């Protein structure tokens, strides 16, 4: 049994001018100790998927349907009280903006200790000791002094380390990281990615990382889910996806990224463009969601929505025309 199984997740939002189908039928699973990346551009539903797993979607105007099984238990059927016991304890989350995600009037130590006292009933002293351990774990120097400091006394990179410390304090089985390095500078991003790779070995939590940056995906993920317009369009093991993308959208994304070191080859290339814009999710989309921007789209694509098919072992894509390996029967 997988640690997390998301089955046909639909998260819709009601607005004045229609229903926004932010996530529309997404299924995936995460094994214990595995790192899965969900990648896509803004508005593809990747963050909403993450928020839905923790039931952090305000209802109304939102509504979640489908099933989210964590250790076999459907989170959508849990009471609010049960969800509170799960959040921050068994599943925890890191957000993009480390400044606004930390409470400015509480010390770092209090914020780490709070989850421990809440979920594990630790005493104030034990919680602080554990907070110091956590700060050491995430590589913050002088942890004894830092636990007494307030978020504004820390730099952006330090704050993100504190966020990770809070998230890991209760030894969660699943860590959801929503664009954890997007707000950071590139040298700080490298530090945090390095830390996450380290922690993966030492802590052993499964990680779902939400990002728009394919570089980050390549650095940390084992398996990748590509989302577009609220659907999963491709999923594969990371090496396979980058070497041999099957869905035209994934191909377009990879082609539109300039590669570092491009000048060393001596060939001037032009970036591939994906023409057009993402379709509105407020209308019902007929056929393939990517058809309006796909260079290969035919009549079939605009009429019939392609199912997710296994195109190669462990490699699934939703495209009528994607090349299919001969699968062993």
């Amino acid at each position: 049994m997988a640690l997390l199984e998301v089955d046909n997740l639909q998260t819709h939002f009601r607005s004045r001018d229609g229903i926004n189908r932010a996530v529309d039928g997404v299924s995936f699973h995460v094994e214990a100790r595995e790192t899965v990346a969900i990648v896509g551009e803004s508005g593809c539903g990747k963050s909403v998927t993450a928020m839905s797993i923790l039931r952090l979607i305000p209802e109304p105007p939102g509504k979640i349907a489908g099933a989210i099984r964590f250790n076999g238990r459907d989170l959508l059927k849990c009471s609010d009280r049960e969800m509170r016991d799960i959040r921050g304890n068994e599943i925890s989350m890191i957000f993009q903006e480390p400044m606004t995600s930390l409470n400015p009037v509480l010390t770092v130590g209090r914020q780490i200790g709070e989850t421990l006292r809440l979920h594990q009933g630790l005493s104030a002293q034990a919680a602080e000791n554990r907070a110091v351990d956590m700060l050491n774990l995430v590589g913050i120097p002088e942890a004894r002094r830092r636990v007494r400091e307030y978020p504004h006394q820390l730099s952006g990179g330090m704050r993100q380390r504190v966020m990770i410390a809070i998230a890991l304090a209760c030894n969660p089985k699943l860590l959801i990281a929503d664009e954890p390095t997007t707000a950071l500078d590139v040298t700080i991003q490298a530090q945090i990615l390095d830390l996450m790779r380290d922690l993966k070995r030492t802590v052993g939590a499964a990680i779902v990382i939400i990002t728009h940056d394919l570089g980050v995906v390549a650095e940390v993920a084992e398996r990748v889910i590509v989302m577009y317009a609220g659907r999963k369009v491709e999923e594969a093991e990371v090496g396979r996806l980058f070497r041999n993308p099957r869905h035209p959208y994934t191909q377009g994304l990879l082609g539109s990224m300039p590669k570092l070191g491009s000048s060393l080859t001596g060939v001037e290339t032009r970036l591939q463009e994906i023409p057009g814009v993402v379709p509105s999710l407020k209308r019902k989309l007929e056929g393939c969601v990517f058809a309006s921007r796909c260079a290969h789209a035919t009549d079939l694509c605009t009429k019939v929505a392609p199912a997710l098919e296994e195109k190669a072992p462990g490699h699934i894509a939703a495209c009528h025309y994607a090349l299919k390996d001969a699968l062993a029967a």
Partner: protein
Amino acid sequence: MASASVLSPADVSAAKVAAAAPMGDIMPPVKARHGLWGFIYRNPTIAIGGGIVLLMVIMAVFAPLFWTVDPTALAPARRTREPSAEYWFGTDMLGRDVYSRVIYGARVSLIVGFSVAICASIIGLTIGLVSGFVRWADSIVMRVMDGMMSIPPILLAIALMALTRGSVQNVIIAITIAEVPRVSRLVRGVVLSLREQPYVDAAVAAGTRTPVIIWRHILPNTIAPMTVQATFICASAMITESILSFIGAGTPPIIPSWGNIMAEGRALWQVKPYIVFFPAVFLSITVLAVNMLGDGLRDTLDPRMAKRI
């Protein structure tokens, strides 16, 4: 590296096409509402607040058509009558018809409210724009405004009224002066934040002169927050006017206003509460309606508020 030629348009026959299961909706469809009803449905606070304000305006303008009598006609024989079919809101100590006085009284409240809102907005906008753009003027103007703001507006208005004689015009001037500092502060804040907008930098780089930048890039973007502020000024001016009239420092007794009707009923409050009750209800409803209108306008006009789902 990724190559683009992994598509195989070769062997697609209808039989082999794998269609995804269609996804149903999990919530009932959103009904598209157009026209007036759509507007009311989407902006109930604007509709209700605006509707009541509009009703009050119609009532004030066409007061003679609303089954009123001369609000100043004295009738000592029919003093302090209870509300009845003949005198809907009863009569006061001098036998004047309270209903007619309340309806005519709306004129003063609305004129004062609207005039102060307009005058204070224009003056505040000018001062705010100047101090937002002229560095040396800013520190002087804002210190003066700070000084004025340290006096409660109502006290300032009373003090100003003490210098002149009571008339609607003087009431408007006094309340406007008392309201200007707050508006100037607001506009200055808006101007300072607008000045930092990249489109203003881009306009400077495009050779636009400062007066044109103020006129074309700053002013139009202060209108929305200004309109919202104006409604709140209007509401507060109506209350201030009533207070001034109530303590006898505002509208002269010859002109009925909600404040001075209440002032005249004050002595009989214990035995004839209706003389105070009706103008008070009208004042409350009008101020509430104007405030609702302002809240509604803020929600629709202020993009920062509107962005939150």
